């Protein structure tokens, strides 16, 4: 069945297991930020600023945005944004600055409930929203910012919403300017969230039919099946070329692969373990297209762990460990080339002008002998049990007692063959330099829950290393700065890495406009090894029917189905 996909201009897209869409309000709240939610609602409500990497590099995508490229004042403290002229909401009214202000007010007065909030960032860093006219407005910022960073990382979160439909406090309440007072904004926010929590009504609730995007909801089941149809009222310049997109949920990757083999989906995926089936799938009318991710993958060291921390703080130890990771072999044999070796904090594929030369060349290539020498020259000797122990504390480094062993536990995400094998390989190759890893496995959520940034005295600080990157450890917004993962005290800096120089470089990368600042940051952390760098796997290995043209897949893990074509 289904040898020719995309019948009647319909494309069926396979969702990954356990990622069923369940949120529709363009304001995300914590816990409902799965990428498929935003992928779907941004097709209904056009974001202010969209980035996309399908052109080959990650760049501003004006067609998918509701504004033209924002302009920054010379002092970097004022952003001026002009909305596009042709976008209208479903009721025919035009998109205006009021709709942006509505969003801003809701976020300003409800920032802690909003999913995109982090202290010091939006809306904290926006001092004022200034309406210039119906189509133009300004954000006044608290200090100068790198325009590229601010647009890519901050403004992408702004989602204009139809104020004339949304600005009410109950389902049959009157539309008003409730958002302009704090109390009113909170009521409106709560009302909208409550509506969004009523999943079974997504298909019928008029709120969700008010959008201005290229698609409209036809079906949104509690089981996670979502059908979007081409929005006939769409007035922008990014109109859909397909009639219908069906997002189909799957209970497991195996089940999806079985369906794929019978041609049951137009745009699906397969595990890299099944890549040998490539020709079989191709003969069934599929094309295999790796979907690269704008991400990096790594294993954090817990620098605050009382025993292992002092060891991890030694750069030579981190260097020795990095030398012992055979990334090329892992990429080739375990990921079957569906991953790219990673040497530093900036995504390496697709290529970007932000990548430093040091990171491109890999300062710590796979070299067991060198790794061993590094350890031995610092006073470590391998014992009868094959584990290196510190024989000379004066050379081992500060805080490492004599007899301390290079024995660590690594808590890794379960459920993926590739990860299992990568961890087994890591254990095996580290054992060759006298580093003993004890592997533990747990579901992703448990791994994350267990790998908290912590004070060394806290009981939850017992973890040594953890891996949660089966699909990439960290996905960047359009601009790959590292303030949230390597900045001192940042929440997602799980291993509590702290280096004043790194903090300085990070600060520069987010506030100055040139690419040198981020390259300098990349160069430093590539050498400093705040984590074990690992190959970054693709977002997914896609299998797409040959008659469905999806263009390049967006490394930011978003989708532009309106640009797909069916022949």
């Amino acid at each position, binding site marked *: 069945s289904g040898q020719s996909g995309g019948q009647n201009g319909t494309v069926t897209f396979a969702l990954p*297991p*356990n990622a*069923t869409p*369940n*949120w529709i309000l363009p304001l995300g709240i*914590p*816990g*409902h*930020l799965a990428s498929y939610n935003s992928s779907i609602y941004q097709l209904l409500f056009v974001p202010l600023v969209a980035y996309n990497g399908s052109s080959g590099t990650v760049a501003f995508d004006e067609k998918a945005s509701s504004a033209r490229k924002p302009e920054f004042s010379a002092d970097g403290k004022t952003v001026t944004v002009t909305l596009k002229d042709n976008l209208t909401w479903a009721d025919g009214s035009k998109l205006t600055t009021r709709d942006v202000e509505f969003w801003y007010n809701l976020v300003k007065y409800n920032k*802690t*409930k909003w*999913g995109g*909030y*982090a*202290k010091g960032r939006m809306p904290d860093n926006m001092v004022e929203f200034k309406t210039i006219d119906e189509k133009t407005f300004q954000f006044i910022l608290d200090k100068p910012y790198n325009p590229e960073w601010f647009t890519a990382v901050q403004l992408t979160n702004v989602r204009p919403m139809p104020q004339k439909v949304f600005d009410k406090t109950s389902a049959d309440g009157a539309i008003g300017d409730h958002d302009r007072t704090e109390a009113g904004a909170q009521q409106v926010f709560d009302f909208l969230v409550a509506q*969004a*929590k009523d*999943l*079974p009504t997504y298909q019928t609730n008029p709120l969700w039919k008010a959008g201005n995007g290229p698609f409209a909801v036809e079906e949104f*089941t*509690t*089981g*996670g099946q979502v059908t979007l149809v081409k929005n006939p009222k769409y007035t922008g310049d990014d109109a859909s070329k397909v009639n219908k997109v069906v997002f189909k*949920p*799957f*209970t*497991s990757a*195996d*089940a*999806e692969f*079985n*369906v794929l*083999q*019978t041609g*049951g989906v137009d745009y699906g995926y397969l595990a890299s373990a099944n890549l040998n089936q490539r020709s079989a799938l191709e003969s069934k009318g599929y094309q295999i297209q790796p979907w690269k991710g704008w991400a990096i993958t790594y294993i954090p060291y817990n620098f605050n762990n009382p025993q292992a921390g002092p060891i991890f703080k030694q750069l030579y130890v981190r260097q020795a460990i990095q030398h012992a990771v055979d990334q090329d072999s892992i990429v080739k044999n375990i990921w079957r080339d569906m991953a790219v070796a990673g040497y530093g904090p900036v995504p390496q594929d697709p290529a970007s002008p932000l990548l430093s030369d040091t990171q491109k060349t890999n300062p710590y290539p796979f070299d067991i002998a060198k790794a061993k020498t590094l350890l031995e020259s610092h006073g470590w000797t391998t014992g009868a049990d094959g584990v290196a122990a510190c024989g000379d504390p004066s050379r081992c480094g500060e805080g490492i007692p004599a007899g301390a062993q290079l024995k660590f536990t690594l808590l890794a995400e379960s*459920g993926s063959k590739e990860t299992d094998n990568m961890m087994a390989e890591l254990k095996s190759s580290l054992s060759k330099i006298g580093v003993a890893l004890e592997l533990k496995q747990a*579901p*992703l*959520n*448990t*791994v*994350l*829950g*267990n*790998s*908290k940034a912590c004070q060394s005295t806290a009981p*939850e600080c017992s973890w040594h290393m953890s891996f*949660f990157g089966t699909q990439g*450890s*960290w996905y960047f917004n359009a601009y790959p700065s590292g303030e*949230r993962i390597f900045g001192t005290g940042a*929440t*997602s800096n*799980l291993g509590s890495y702290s280096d004043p120089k790194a903090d300085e470089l990070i600060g520069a990368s987010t506030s100055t406009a040139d690419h040198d600042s981020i390259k300098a940051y990349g160069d430093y952390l590539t050498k400093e090894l705040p984590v074990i760098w690992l190959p970054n796997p693709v977002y997914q290995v896609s299998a797409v029917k040959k008659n469905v043209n999806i263009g390049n897949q967006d490394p930011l893990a978003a989708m532009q189905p309106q640009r797909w074509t069916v022949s």
Partner: protein
Amino acid sequence: MARFLFWRVVQAVAVIFVVTVVVFFLLHQIPGGPSRGILGIQATEDQIQAFDREQGFDQPLPIQYLHYLGRLLQGDLGESFQLNQSVGELITDRLPKTLILTVLSTLVALLLAIPLGVWQAVKRNRPTDYLLSALTLLIYSTPVFLVGFIFIIVFAINAAWFPVQAPQADTIGGIFADSQALVLPVLTGAGVVLAVFARYLRSSVVDNLDEDYVRTARAKGASEKRIIARHVFKNSLTSLVAMLGYYLPVLFSGALVTEKLFNYPGMGLLFWNAAQTSDFPILLGVVLVLSVATVTGSLLADVAQALIDPRTRRVKT
């Protein structure tokens, strides 16, 4: 009888209470807590704290439990952390699906196991019996996931006799309408218990054939067929049905595998995914529903035995 029933119900309620306590406290022994995992790596400290406050994780465990119990007594199973639905909704959504599959699987297993077991009993300790014993054991000892996998590869992908997925409809009518798609998952599910039923029935029929009433029936001039069908069978079946009550948990674990392989989102999968994402309210809800089902099952089994089958009152030799 009424008194007996009353006490058994009281005990059943106590059992369910114990189950909720055990499950609740066990869940909270999982180190790390659910918030970081639920909110994702990108979540900020504030959000994590807000989440913990909202869910009451900052309170002592017994207090949390009392809150849970309080809501439970009002019929509120809570909200899923992650799925944007209430646990009650999720379960009413998924339970019928799993029920369809398990009930059909059990029926099919019984339909196959009954003639098999009876025939083996009639031919006991003869080559046919040995052969069938070996066959049922073979099915029994092949892990479910392998059975399902083989079914899919052979009958769905290569031969294309059946669809690779279980019915995808959301309504019960829709599921039954797609009956062809039910075949493979139901057979896989049946495999789990078929052998157990067949073996159990065989020994039960063998025991019953030794009973004196069989001799009485023969003396009346009843044919062997009639004796098996009308006399022995009913005796063996009542004990088999009594056993079914206790097989719910086994069926449930089997359901998970079938649901995963055949893209059929039921209770097993709901539970499994919740376990993967530390979605405590769902875990608690599913375990609660299952324990109610199991306890009711065993209660019904006990009552049925006490009511229908006077042999349970006799001291067995």
